[in-house]
């Protein structure tokens, strides 16, 4: 990890100094090793001071490029394989200007979730150390060691691809494990196999936790509307709270439907949810359906293909015809 970070820093400084770019989008170190924040670096000094790349850089940087579009000059951005899909999707929707972006694709061995570490009963985490497959957690209550594979972010556990689909150059030192993109639908299939009552109970307990903080929407690289329908007082659905249990369902159905066919399954919605609602299971249901009904489709794999909801065939299946009878 340290080696990649050094290579990234060197690359950023090189590109800044030779004038290819005038700013760098990466991550800045926090106080506990796990609390890195996306940041823009403008100089060599800033990069040397706080640029970081470790296993807690799960945040997808591509959405920040929408905001950066308004600024002058070329920007260097470090993208993990999954982030490049979001980038492509933004290019396709004309939300970013490709010509003003220099992408360095970076190695990703999967990123870790501090919540998953804490769920193992480890609290008071003040620092971490990575040694290959093991992570030593330094806590005010004593050090503990956990296995990387057990404390990864959900989006990394069910990684869809280790291939960069857009980049100007790559920094890859170690081989990245192959991803099994179909694995991510297993939980969706599990839910589908339940009865309607069981599914209703599952989603009721999950969605009732929603506090309508809009983190899932605001972090989503596909949610780039200037004004969201849920912020528009004219829409009649701009409630800021789940004043009735209907509201949370409406919000999550519409939010996910709006990104259907555009969602690259980057998993940011689930990562940021303060109540850990498995929002990816809603998005993945749509992706699974699209794959089954209209042929395999991966949003962001390219910048030209037609999205499933802006295309059709005359022999598409009829609504509801695939569903099982019965309550």
């Amino acid at each position, binding site marked *: 990890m340290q080696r990649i970070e050094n290579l990234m820093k060197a690359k950023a400084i090189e590109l800044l100094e030779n004038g290819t770019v005038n700013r760098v989008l990466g991550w800045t170190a926090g106080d506990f090793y796990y609390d890195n924040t996306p*940041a823009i670096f403008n100089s060599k000094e800033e990069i040397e001071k706080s640029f970081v790349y470790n296993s807690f850089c799960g945040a997808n940087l591509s959405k920040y490029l929408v905001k950066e579009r308004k600024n002058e000059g070329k920007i260097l951005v470090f993208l993990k394989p999954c982030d490049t899909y979001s980038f492509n999707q933004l290019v396709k929707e004309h939300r970013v200007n490709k010509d003003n972006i220099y992408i360095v694709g970076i190695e990703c061995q999967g990123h870790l979730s501090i919540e998953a570490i804490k769920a193992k009963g480890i609290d*008071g985490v003040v620092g971490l150390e990575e040694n290959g497959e093991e992570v030593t957690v330094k806590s005010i209550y004593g050090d503990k060691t956990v296995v990387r594979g057990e404390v990864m972010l959900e989006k990394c556990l069910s990684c869809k691809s280790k291939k960069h689909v857009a980049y100007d150059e790559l920094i890859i030192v170690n081989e990245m494990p192959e991803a099994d993109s179909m694995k991510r639908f297993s939980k969706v299939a599990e839910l589908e196999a339940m009865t309607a009552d069981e599914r209703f109970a599952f989603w009721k307990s999950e969605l009732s936790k929603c506090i309508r*903080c809009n*983190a899932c929407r605001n972090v989503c690289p596909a949610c780039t509307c200037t004004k969201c329908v849920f912020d528009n007082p004219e829409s009649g659905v*701009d409630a*800021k709270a789940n004043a009735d249990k209907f509201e949370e369902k409406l919000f999550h159905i519409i939010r996910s439907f709006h990104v259907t066919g555009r969602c690259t399954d980057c998993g940011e919605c689930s990562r940021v949810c303060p109540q850990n609602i498995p929002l990816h299971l809603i998005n993945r249901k749509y992706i699974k359906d699209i794959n089954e009904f209209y042929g395999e489709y991966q949003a962001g794999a390219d910048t030209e293909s037609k999205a499933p909801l802006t295309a059709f065939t005359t022999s598409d299946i009829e609504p509801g015809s695939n569903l099982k009878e019965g309550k």
Partner: protein
Amino acid sequence: MLKIELNKLNDLFAKISSSTDLILPVTVAGETNFAKYEDGAEVNLSVQTVKSAKDSFFPQAEDLMKFKTEGKKIDIIDVREKVESFVLFGVRACDYRSFEILDRVFLVDPIDTYYKAKREKGVIVTLACSRPEESCFCSAFGIDATNPLGDVTTYIADGFLYWNANTDKGNALTDAVKDLFAQADSNDEAKIDEQKKNTKEILSKLPYANVDLSGFTPDKLNELFNDAKWEELSEACLGCGSCTFVCPTCQCYDIKDFKTNDGVKRFRCWDSCMYADFTKMAHGNSRNFQLQRFRQRFMHKLVYYPSNNEGIYSCVGCGRCVKKCPISMNIAKVIKTIGGKNND
């Protein structure tokens, strides 16, 4: 002081909830939040709740009134129900302090009757901390996590819950459940004191425990407001409301109308200064950029509120925003960056 074995706590909860509503930390779908106790509820007293305890007095959504329309006739209906007394159990010292901060907003003229009714009827049972998290920094605000106030103070040590009533309301509650308890002796008190000592030692060593707030004084308002560092601090902010909605002291709300099939329901709901439509008026919005909205939150907590309230900060250092921010930006980092000189 009274004591009860931890494995008998469910009896205590059942007894309290048989006569009055009991609100306490309950785990639903893996996350712990304050909720009403029901038979079989998964009570969890060992973790910090995701949302704070303020919901009990200042709910996320609350009906204010109703309008019923019939032709041209409009009836205004008061929907305030008589608030029954309830018990709020398991409140930590930080959350308890937050009620005092909210009181200074809602209980000064004009008094918020909705808040006041709940505040008067609530019996607060606090719980001392014995295992602080790395994100805790209540001691920076002079809060003693090991010795919370409230109507009743409880401590968990060595397989027992110790119970100490502080007020008349607390005594009344104690009388109702007394027969479940045994009397604690000096041995037990020594145990609690020992635990307090250990906890205090941990608290003093926490990474954010000694953040220096001395730079945040009302006379430096302009200087702080114009600080150039707000830009870098706010640049990654997504503008979501996580920090404000998990915060125990955020008190801004919006009043909205919901059109029902035969009238209008007027309700209020928490608002977030991070949202683009926060304090939007007829002329438009007073804060057009995320930088301004971001700055508002911290200036309010650390400068504006103290300048109106005898220097009391409206942050209690519970650390919820530290844990929940999607991009790991938080008030502790803000304090460290633009606060006092003693922050490295």
